[in-house]
C-alpha cells in the first residue's frame, strides 16, 4: 500500500501546517509546508526504522477548508486537481448547489477528524487509490466531474462517499467485493452503479454512501 500524507493549513493554529498520514500513522506539523514535509519524512523514517532516502512511495495531499467545517482534499502534485478543488469550493459556497439538505448529508460521513472531506477525483481514478486514503475510522466524499451536462447546466459535480470499516457512517451501503474486483474498479464504474449527479438547479438528491469491504 502506498503511503498517503495529508497536509492541512490553518493560520490560527501553531504551527500552521499540520499533517497526518496512513497506513503508517504519523502526526505533526511545521511552520511552512516544507517544514511539515521534512517533519513527516523524518517521522515516517523513524517509525519504519529506515533512512529518509529509503522511504517508500508517498502521495501527498493538501486539505483546505472550503466553508465552515467542510474541507476539500486534492493531490498536491496535480495542478488540475487544484483547479478542481477551486471549482468545488465555489460550488460549496453557492446556494444553488449547497443547501441545508446537502450540508446535513455531508456531515453523515465525516473523517476521523469529525468533519467531511471532499476528495477531488477523476472518473478514471482507481477506487483502491481512494481507499488508500482512508483509515478504518474515516469516511471521505469523492467529488467527480459528471460528464453528461444537460443544456444550460454548468459545473456538474457528482458525489459519493466511501466509508471505512469502523467509520461513524453506520448507514453506508455495505459492498463486499473480492480484491480483484476492487483492484480493477474505477470511480466511473463505482459511480455508474451507485452515484447520482448533483448539479446546480437540479432537483436535490441525496448523494449515496457506500462502505467497501474486501471479501477474504
Amino acid at each position, binding site marked *: 500500500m502506498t503511503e498517503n500524507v495529508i497536509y492541512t493549513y490553518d493560520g490560527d493554529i501553531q504551527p500552521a501546517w499540520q499533517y497526518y498520514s496512513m497506513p503508517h500513522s*504519523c502526526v*505533526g506539523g511545521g511552520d511552512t509546508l516544507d517544514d511539515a514535509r521534512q517533519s513527516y519524512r523524518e517521522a515516517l523514517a523513524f517509525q519504519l526504522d529506515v533512512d529518509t532516502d529509503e522511504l517508500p512511495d508517498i502521495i501527498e495531499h493538501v486539505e483546505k477548508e472550503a466553508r465552515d467545517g467542510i474541507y476539500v482534499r486534492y493531490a498536491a502534485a496535480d495542478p488540475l486537481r487544484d483547479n478542481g478543488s477551486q471549482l468545488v469550493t465555489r460550488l460549496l459556497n453557492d446556494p444553488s448547489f449547497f443547501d441545508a439538505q446537502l450540508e446535513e448529508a455531508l456531515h453523515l460521513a465525516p473523517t476521523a477528524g469529525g468533519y467531511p472531506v471532499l476528495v477531488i477525483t477523476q472518473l478514471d481514478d482507481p477506487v483502491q487509490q481512494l481507499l488508500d486514503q482512508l483509515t478504518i475510522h474515516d469516511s471521505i466524499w469523492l467529488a467527480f466531474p459528471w460528464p453528461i451536462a444537460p443544456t444550460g447546466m454548468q459545473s456538474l459535480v457528482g458525489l459519493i462517499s466511501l466509508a471505512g470499516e469502523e467509520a461513524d457512517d453506520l448507514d453506508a451501503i455495505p459492498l463486499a467485493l473480492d480484491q480483484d474486483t476492487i483492484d480493477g474498479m474505477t470511480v466511473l464504474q463505482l459511480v455508474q452503479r451507485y452515484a447520482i449527479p448533483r448539479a446546480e438547479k437540479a432537483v436535490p438528491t441525496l448523494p449515496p454512501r457506500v462502505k467497501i469491504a474486501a471479501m477474504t
Partner: protein
Amino acid sequence: MGARFPTKTGKELDRIIRKYCTLDRQKGSHRTYIRDDRTGSPFTFSDHDQAILPGGKVRRTLVNDVGLTLEQAEREVGMR
C-alpha cells in the same frame, strides 16, 4: 453533526496519549507509541509541547491512533 473538538496543546494531547499508550521509541520530537492493550498499530506523534493542535487532529489522534471510542475521547478533552 457532532460537536467540534477543542484545540489542545501538544503537551496536553501527549498527556492523554500516555494514559493509554506506552512510549516505544523517541528521537528528538518524534515519539512512537504503542497502545497498552496491544491493539492497533504503532503511531508517531511529532508535535512539540507548545504546539496548538486543531480539534480535528485531536479527535483523529484519540480515535484513530489511541483507539478510544468517541465517548471516551470526548470525556478526555472535557466535552462530557
